[in-house]
């Protein structure tokens, strides 16, 4: 079954909790490979596991302060 985001990569920020987790679950079930980013990097492995369960073909995560240019740049240049 083809899914809407098969072969696409999505970067989702603020994904350690709350709405971010719901976004992860939705994009994962749509088939996107995911890069998760949050200032609270410690919370991300658990959310990444949920993403794989929900159907993401690949998941990476990065703990960065995205309110700083360097943190956002490091996130953008991280490839799956």
């Amino acid at each position, binding site marked *: 079954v083809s899914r*809407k*985001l098969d072969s*696409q990569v*999505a*970067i*989702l*920020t*603020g*994904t350690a*909790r*709350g*709405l*971010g*987790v*719901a*976004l992860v*679950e*939705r*994009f994962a079930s*749509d088939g996107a490979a995911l890069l998760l*980013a*949050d*200032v609270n990097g410690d919370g991300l492995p658990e959310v990444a596991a949920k993403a794989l369960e929900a159907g993401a073909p690949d998941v990476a995560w990065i703990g960065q302060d*995205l*309110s*700083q*240019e360097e*943190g*956002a*740049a490091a*996130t*953008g*240049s991280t490839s799956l």
Partner: protein
Amino acid sequence: VNNAGGGLIRPFLEHTAETLRETINRNLWTTIWCIRAVLPHMIERQYGRIVNISADSVHTGLYSHAGYNAAKGGVNGLTTGLAFEFAKYNITVNCVSPGGIMTPEIQQMFDPNSDVYKKHRIVDVRTVLAQIPIGRLVEMHEVAALAAFLTYQESRSITGQIYSVNGGQWMM
């Protein structure tokens, strides 16, 4: 999808310079820096979908939200400007703007004695609930579904838009 946010919701004059700066940093600068980081790659691919998570409190005002709204209103302005500028590269930029949504944190706000309620010094969330025609807060997966739709191939003609998901609390 620029969902990173946070900061403090509190009466404007109860903010310190530091809490105001943190609120703007976490809700607006995160979005600016992340978009700047990915746009060159999107231009190279001649394809991109950017979805910013804004907030309907920009329209409703909402008690104690002035600092937060300053940041989220900035996100809305960023969205329309970028949508115009980068449309020629097949890059769309849109906002999903939730009203009251049932996050674990907001669930705690139903209790005025909760830590979350005290931290944000926000109005009783039940008074907000009374203003929502569908009679309930929006579920998080409903917001996520719209964000996902805006990244689909078939959304290619939708750009520069701010979409509320608010149960009808604010219309138009």
